[in-house]
C-alpha cells in the first residue's frame, strides 16, 4: 500500500505520440458499396466503360444543342460526301473533290466544303462533264468507269484542266461534315448524335422498367411464396417462352412504328428476366435473421420488401441491369433495322445502318459510323457490367 501511495510524479508522463494511436481501429470500416466502388475503380476496363458511357450521355444531351444544324436539315447539292477524300488543285486557292457519282464539289485546302460546282456541259453519251472554274476549262471524263467496271481498283475517271490531266493533290479530312453526309445531304455526325439520344432514351426506359416492374414483381413473388409465387412465375414462364422480339414486333405492328411504341413494347416485355433474378434473391434473403427481426418489430410486408430485401439484393440487380440495358439498345437498333423503329426523318443507329445498306459498296462510311457507335456503346456497357459483377460479388471481397 505504501508503495502505491508513493508513485513518483515522473511516472505520470503522457505516453509517446506514436503509442497514442495504438488502440484506434486503423482501417476505416468500409461499407459494401464503398468496397464495391473501390474494387470497381481498380478495374481499368470498367472505368473505361464508365467514362465512355459518361461521354456518350454528354454528347447525346449537349451535342445536338450546340450543333449548327439538325438531323433533318438536308442539302441535296452535297449528298454522299465521305469523311475523308482526295482533292485536286485547280488554282492557287481552288480545290475540288470528285464525288463517286462523278460530280465536282469545291473544297478548301484543309477540307472545308464550299459547295457544288455547276457544270457548263453534261454530255452523257461521251461520258464527260465540263466545268468552268477560275477561268479554266475543267473536264471530268468518266468514260473509264464503264470499261473498268469489273476491276474495283482500276482508274474510273480523269480530271483534265485545260487539257492537262490532274493528279490528286492530297487526301484531307472533311472539316464541315466530320462523318460525311448521307444520300440526302444530311450531316451524318449530327444524325449519329441524335441516334445516341434515341438509344440512350431506350436504355433509360429499359432500366426504369426493369427496376420498377421487374424488381417489384420478382420481389413480391419471392416474398409471398406459395400459391402467389406459383401463379406469378407461371405467368413469367409463359411470357418468356416466346422470344421478346416476337412480342415487340407484334406490338409495333399493332401500334405503329415510332419511339413511343418501342418504349411501350419494351415496357410491357422487358421486366421478365429481372423478375426471375430478384425472385431468386428474395427467396434466399427472406430466411435471414434480419427479416425475422423486422417482422418481430412489426414492420409491414411492404416495408420489409422495400427497405430490407430489395436493398440487399441490389448487387445482382445492378449487374442484371447493366446486361439488360445493352440488350434493349440492341433490340431497338434491330427493330429500326427491319423498319419498325423511329419514323423518318428521325433516325436511330439501326435506321442509319439500314439506310446505308443500299449504297454499301460505294459509301461504306455511312454504315461504318452508326455501327461503330453501336459497338462502342455495347462495349462500354459490357465492360462496366463485367467489372460490376466482380466488384459486387461478396465472395471476391477482400
Amino acid at each position, binding site marked *: 500500500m505504501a508503495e502505491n501511495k508513493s508513485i513518483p510524479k515522473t511516472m505520470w508522463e503522457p505516453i509517446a505520440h506514436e503509442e497514442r494511436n495504438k488502440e484506434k481501429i486503423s482501417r476505416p470500416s468500409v461499407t459494401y458499396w464503398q468496397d464495391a466502388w473501390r474494387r470497381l475503380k481498380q478495374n481499368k476496363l470498367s472505368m473505361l466503360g464508365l467514362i465512355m458511357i459518361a461521354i456518350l450521355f454528354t454528347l447525346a444531351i449537349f451535342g445536338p444543342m450546340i450543333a449548327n444544324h439538325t438531323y433533318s436539315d438536308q442539302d441535296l447539292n452535297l449528298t454522299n460526301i465521305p469523311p475523308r477524300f482526295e482533292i485536286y488543285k485547280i488554282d492557287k486557292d481552288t480545290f475540288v473533290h470528285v464525288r463517286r457519282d462523278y460530280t465536282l464539289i469545291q473544297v478548301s485546302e484543309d477540307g472545308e466544303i464550299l459547295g457544288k460546282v455547276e457544270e457548263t456541259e453534261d454530255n452523257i453519251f461521251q461520258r464527260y462533264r465540263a466545268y468552268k472554274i477560275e477561268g479554266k476549262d475543267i473536264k471530268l471524263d468518266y468514260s473509264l468507269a464503264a470499261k473498268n467496271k469489273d476491276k474495283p481498283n482500276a482508274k474510273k475517271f480523269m480530271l483534265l484542266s485545260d487539257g492537262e490531266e490532274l493528279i490528286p493533290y492530297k487526301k484531307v479530312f472533311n472539316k464541315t461534315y466530320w462523318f460525311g453526309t448521307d444520300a440526302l445531304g444530311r450531316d451524318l455526325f449530327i444524325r449519329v448524335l441524335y441516334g445516341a439520344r434515341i438509344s440512350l432514351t431506350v436504355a433509360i426506359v429499359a432500366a426504369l422498367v426493369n427496376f420498377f416492374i421487374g424488381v417489384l414483381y420478382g420481389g413480391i413473388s419471392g416474398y409471398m411464396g406459395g400459391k402467389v409465387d406459383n401463379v406469378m412465375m407461371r405467368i413469367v*414462364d409463359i411470357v418468356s417462352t416466346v*422470344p421478346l422480339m416476337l412480342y415487340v414486333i407484334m406490338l409495333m405492328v399493332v401500334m405503329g412504328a415510332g419511339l413511343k411504341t418501342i418504349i411501350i413494347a419494351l415496357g410491357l416485355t422487358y421486366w421478365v428476366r429481372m423478375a426471375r433474378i430478384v425472385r431468386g434473391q428474395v427467396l434466399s434473403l427472406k430466411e435471414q435473421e434480419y427479416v425475422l427481426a423486422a417482422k418481430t418489430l412489426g414492420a409491414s410486408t411492404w416495408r420489409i420488401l422495400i427497405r430490407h430485401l430489395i436493398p440487399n439484393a441490389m448487387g445482382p440487380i445492378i449487374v442484371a441491369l447493366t446486361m439488360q440495358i445493352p440488350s434493349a439498345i440492341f433490340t431497338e437498333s434491330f427493330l429500326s433495322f427491319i423498319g419498325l423503329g423511329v419514323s423518318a426523318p428521325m433516325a436511330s443507329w439501326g435506321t442509319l445502318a439500314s439506310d446505308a445498306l443500299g449504297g454499301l459498296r460505294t459509301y461504306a462510311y455511312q454504315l461504318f459510323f452508326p455501327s461503330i457507335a453501336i459497338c462502342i456503346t455495347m*462495349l462500354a456497357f459490357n465492360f462496366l457490367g463485367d467489372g460490376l459483377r466482380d466488384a459486387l460479388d461478396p465472395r471476391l471481397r477482400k
Partner: protein
Amino acid sequence: MGRFLANRIISMLITLFLVITITFFLMHAIPGGPFTREKPLPPKVIEALEAKYKLDQPLWKQYVDYLKGVVTFDLGPSFQRVGVTVNELIAKGFPVSAKIGGGSILLVLLVGIPLGVISALKQNKWQDQVVMVLATLGVTIPSFVMATLIIYIFSSKLGWLPSHGLTSWKHMIGPMIALGGFSLSFVARLTRSSMLEVLQQDYIRTARAKGLSEFVVVGKHALKNALIPVVSYIGPTIAAILTGSFVVEKIFAIPGLGKHFVESVGNRDYTVLMGVTIFYAAFLVLMILIVDILYGFIDPRIKVGD
C-alpha cells in the same frame, strides 16, 4: 418422368393457347382492316373480300374458327399474296431457315465450346486473351452489322464468298457466321467460366492424383460437368438464332421463313404474321422441352421428376 412430361406438355399447350389468343386479338385491334389502302377500295369489293376471308362474321366466331384451324394445322390464306396459304409459306421457308439455323447452332457448339475450353486451360496466356477479345467483340457487334461486314469484306472486296442467295455450301458460310456470332461468343465465355470453376473442384484433383492423362481429366471429368450451364443456354440460343434470322435472311436475300416474316411485317400481311408467330412459338416451346429432357439425362443430379 411420365408425370414430368405430362406437366410440361400441358404448360406448353397453355402457353401456345395464350400466344394464339394474344396474337389473334392484337391483330384484330389494329385500326383499319387488312384491306385499307391508300386508294380506298370500293365498298362492294371490300364486302366481297371480307366475305371471302370470313371477316364479316362476329369476332368470337372468327376466333373459334382460327383456333380450329390451328388445331388442324391450317393457318389460313395470306391476305396479300393471292392464292398462297400460310402453310405453304412455312413449308417453303422453314426448311431453308432450318438449314442455316441448324448450321449455325452446330457452329456455335463446335467452335464456341472448344474455344472456351482452350481459353480456360490457358488462363491468362495469350490464347485466353485472344479468345476473350474475340468473344467480347462478338457480343458487341449486332448481327446486321456482322452480316453487312461479311458481305462487304468477303464478297465485295475479296470476292471469296457469294453475297446473296442459297445455292451452294459457300452461300451458307456468311449467314451462319452472322447468325451464330453472338451466341458463339456467349458460349465461349460461358464454357470458359464454368470450366475454370470445375477445374478447381476436388474430383479433378482426385482424377489427376490417380494419374489419369490430362486428356481424360479434361475431356471426361471436367468438360462433362462444365457443359451443364452450356446445355441450358441452348434454348436461348435457338431463340436468338430464330430472331436473328429476320435480318440475316433479309441481308443475304435468303428465301427463308425469317424473310417472309419481316416482309409480312412490312406489307401488313396479318395472317402470315399471326401464322408465323404461332409457328415460331410452337417450335421454340418444343425445342425448349427437348432441351429440358436432355438436361435431365446429362446431369443426373437434376431429377426430371421435380
